[in-house]
């Protein structure tokens, strides 16, 4: 039985890889299977996790959370889109979702991304941390702090909308985009390696688990 499973998985794996050569019926079959199975999987998971696990359990436990009914009512409103005459009602749950998302993201992003990142950029340039005596930091730290402070500052300058990138402002923006390009290069280089390991895992499945050629 397990052998059959490995053969099915191998068939699908090679079918997807065949897309690299060109689009072909083998890939189309794998694609259609994947779309069908995954849509089904997610509906089953959502049904058990959200409808039974979250909504039904929330309603029927000892101190029921009736506010969950708000979610159910909004959900039903969303479904009313199928009824053309009062389809416009589906805009209400949508605006609820957009309002909630906007409100939640505004504060969270602001406190975590802006406040925290700014406060951790406020580094003294000549000594590593608060309290350490002057010049106790190595050149490595000093240069590092200067680059972090200057890089963040010029990066923000690059993102400025309401000022043309000319003159001193233009030079700062140029340093800013260079810093951002180093950041992109760094994460690209860092990622090349991790992508390779995914393929290594799959190839080990084909040549190891399936064909058994690896020691």
């Amino acid at each position, binding site marked *: 039985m397990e052998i059959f499973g490995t053969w099915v998985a191998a068939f699908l794996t090679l079918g997807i890889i065949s897309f690299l050569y060109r689009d072909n019926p083998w890939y189309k079959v794998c694609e259609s299977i994947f779309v069908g199975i995954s849509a089904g999987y997610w509906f089953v998971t959502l049904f058990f996790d959200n409808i039974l696990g979250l909504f039904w359990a929330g309603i029927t436990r000892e101190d029921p959370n009736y506010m969950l009914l708000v979610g159910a009512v909004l959900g039903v409103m969303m479904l009313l889109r199928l009824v053309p005459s009062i389809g416009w009602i589906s805009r209400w749950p949508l605006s609820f979702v957009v309002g909630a998302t906007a409100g939640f993201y505004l504060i969270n992003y602001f406190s975590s991304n802006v406040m925290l990142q700014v406060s951790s950029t406020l580094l003294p340039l000549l000594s590593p941390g608060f309290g350490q005596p002057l010049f106790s930091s190595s050149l490595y730290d000093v240069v590092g702090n200067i680059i972090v402070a200057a890089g963040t500052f010029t990066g923000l300058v690059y993102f400025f909308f309401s000022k043309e990138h000319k003159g001193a402002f233009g030079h700062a923006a140029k340093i800013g985009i260079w810093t951002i390009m180093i950041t992109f290069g760094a994460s690209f280089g860092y990622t090349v390696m991790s992508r390779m390991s995914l393929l290594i895992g*799959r190839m080990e499945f084909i040549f190891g688990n399936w064909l058994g050629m690896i020691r």
Partner: protein
Amino acid sequence: MKRQVPLLITFTVGAVLILSTFFPPVETMGEDFSLYFDIIAVFAFFLGGGNLIRVNSDAIAKKKKGWGFSMVTMAGFFIMLAAGLLKLWNPGGIRGDVAGTGSMFQLLYDWIFNPLGATMYALLAFYVASASYRAFRAKNRDATILLVAAFIILLGRTPLGVYATSWIPESFSILQIPNLAIWIMSSPNLAGQRAIMIGIALGVVSMSLRLILGVERTYLGVDSE
């Protein structure tokens, strides 16, 4: 009616959520709203699932090009639903755990869903190589910086980098590729990440305000009332 109420809802819900973080009694309101969203999302799935069925059955009925593949998708969808919701071929029966060992749902997951997902993800290894080959041309200064930084990090994170620059004397150890890579990650990369993160957060603040104040309403499709 169709236009004012949605904008009012967005405004009140948004404003309430922003203010709730400052008042402990209603601090966890954000959590409850995320629960409501999860419930709305499941209800909305009927629209999505319904569309998937309609599009594919339409293709089959009209024998459009590739209707055979639509049949495969429909079969996959319904088999998975049967195995999951009705727990067919599940040793535990209707009471059993949906993904219990030996259940068809778990088999379909292990034999089909999992390998397909992992292989699609693995295609990235090929695409990263072809993108590096094609895009990494030192055509202007920015692209050159990006290429050099990627090069150093790529070498620095593997034993390869250790070989290449182990000859550099200890006093200049910063120039050894692995140390240089670590320095790039923790200084310029850090600065760039921070600038982008601060920018994103301010972008989110301004977009959220535009949404809450109703200045931005295209998502409601209410341009012409």
